[in-house]
């Protein structure tokens, strides 16, 4: 026989295995032990009592809800270049651009809205952004609302979200 061929022994052909009942007994022993242990002390089960207990293991890499960052002077960092909206695979970013008259930059978004019901949280918008104006580091993983419209986040809301990881104020590029 070729040396590269390895013959794997076939298990489960013995009488005990073919009878199948001893194996069922062994399996039932394990599941029953779990049941017994957990019934006798249900608070020892390692689960999160959500929503009373909130998760503490959200890392910096976690893609949570989006936010828009600011400049040094507290204005919006976005320049309405439409890169994020172009990169978005689910077409959930709606931007209306307008001219910026305060001399800081040439362009800014009049409206910047994300339909979070459409969003798939892929993070392509963050990657596409040339000036670090959109991030997904809020650590927010659950968004609730009573109507569909509640899930369309407007510019003001997106600017108001804080980053979850240490910084006081969100400044683009820092």
């Amino acid at each position, binding site marked *: 026989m070729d040396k590269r061929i390895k013959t794997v022994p076939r298990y489960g052909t013995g009488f005990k295995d073919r009878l199948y009942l001893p194996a069922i007994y062994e399996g039932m022993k394990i599941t029953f032990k779990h*049941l017994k242990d957990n019934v006798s002390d249900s608070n020892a*089960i390692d689960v999160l009592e959500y929503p009373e207990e909130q998760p503490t293991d959200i890392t910096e890499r976690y893609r949570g809800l989006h936010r828009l960052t600011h400049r040094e002077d507290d204005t919006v960092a976005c320049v309405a270049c439409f890169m994020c909206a172009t990169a978005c695979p689910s077409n959930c970013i709606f931007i209306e651009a307008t001219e910026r008259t305060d001399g800081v930059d040439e362009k800014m978004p009049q409206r910047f809205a994300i339909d979070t019901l459409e969003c798939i949280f892929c993070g392509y918008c963050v990657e596409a952004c040339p000036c670090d104006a959109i991030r997904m580091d809020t650590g927010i993983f659950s968004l609730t609302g009573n109507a569909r419209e509640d899930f369309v986040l407007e510019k003001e809301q997106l600017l108001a979200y804080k980053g979850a990881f240490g910084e006081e104020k969100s400044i683009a590029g820092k």
Partner: protein
Amino acid sequence: MSTATIVVAVFSLVLAALLALLMIPVLVWLERRVAGLVQDRLGPNRTNVGGFRLGGVVQSFADVIKLVLKGEYYPSHIKMGRWLFMLAPAITFAMALLAFMVIPFADNIVVDGESLRIQALPIESGILWYMAIGAVGIIGIVFGGWLSHNKYSLIGAVRAGAQMIGYELPLGLSVIAIVLTYNTIDFNVMVQWQSGTVLGFLPAWGIIVQPLAAVIFIITLFVETNRAPFSVAEGESEIVAGYMTEYTAMKFAMYFMGEYVAMNTASAVIITMFFGGYQLPWVSTQFLLEHFSIFALVMMPLIPLVVYFVIKWMRKNNRVRETVSTDGGRLFETKVLTIALIAMTVIIELILVYLALQPVGAFSTSIAVTLFQVVIFVVKLMVFNLFFILVRWTLPRFRYDQVQKMGWHYLLPLSLLNIFITALIVVGVS
């Protein structure tokens, strides 16, 4: 017809209906809760009515309300046999329910020299009724799968039908061996037979007298009830949901609940035929009736002990862990339930004291014995339902061809062999 006859008949019927129907939400909850606990999760434990969650069993009632209130959806591609499509789940449900009606919940009660059965349907050919009605339930599944005009539904129905044919044979044949042993087709006589002993000390339960028939019977009942590891007719990993694919809302719930009623019925039949029915091992009804005062004296310290442990367990587990701030009314619930349990114990103790003072052969004693046997039956029923559930969360599903092979190649010859051996022994002994 005397008043006693009517009272006993109504009592049995109400008891059977309660045990079959009220058990559905409990079993659905138990299934989900046990699944959770086996997998180191919690399972449904949040739903409550005014802070009373009773371990989460309220969830099942919420589910039922939701299913009843759900919009009725009728698949538009089904042009023919619409009424049968709607009727099919009801057939399965009704047959599972009817099959439960021949189970004896306690031994015959003697009122004014008249022996009355504690059986919703007081017939003597219980096992035949169960076999006949239990097999009709499959028709609902076949109709449902066939009339759905859907490949998956049809495959599910075909599987259910073929599986049924394959396993009805070993089921019937194992029952023949049991009938040979007990020499009766009456469930109640079977239970009475099991109150004796074999080899001098073992209780003469069916599982000890007929171990092979018991194993075959239990396996075939798992198939009959379409439960894991034989749930190939549903097979959600292969054929969406099998025969239930096109069903929604209450029509789906009918199938779903029918499955649990069938499981409950199967447990009851297994208990009745192999685990001494409503009886404690070594203790026959006659013995109980004659020595009830001793028995009451034994029960008196036992009941508070059990209640003490239940309360201790409840106080330990019906609370939130330290990291959770809101209690959600659990403390209040524990308090109320503790008071209720203690009050119940006191009442039972008083009744036991009264019964212990009664002379032998008093009518109150025989009522007490009947109620006691009903309690034993319900406890055994719950244990067996738990066994069914635990098996589901332990074993993976068999492949379809393995199911068929097991039925025809192994169980059928084994049950035939069992009949042969049983017949030899029965003839040899007599």
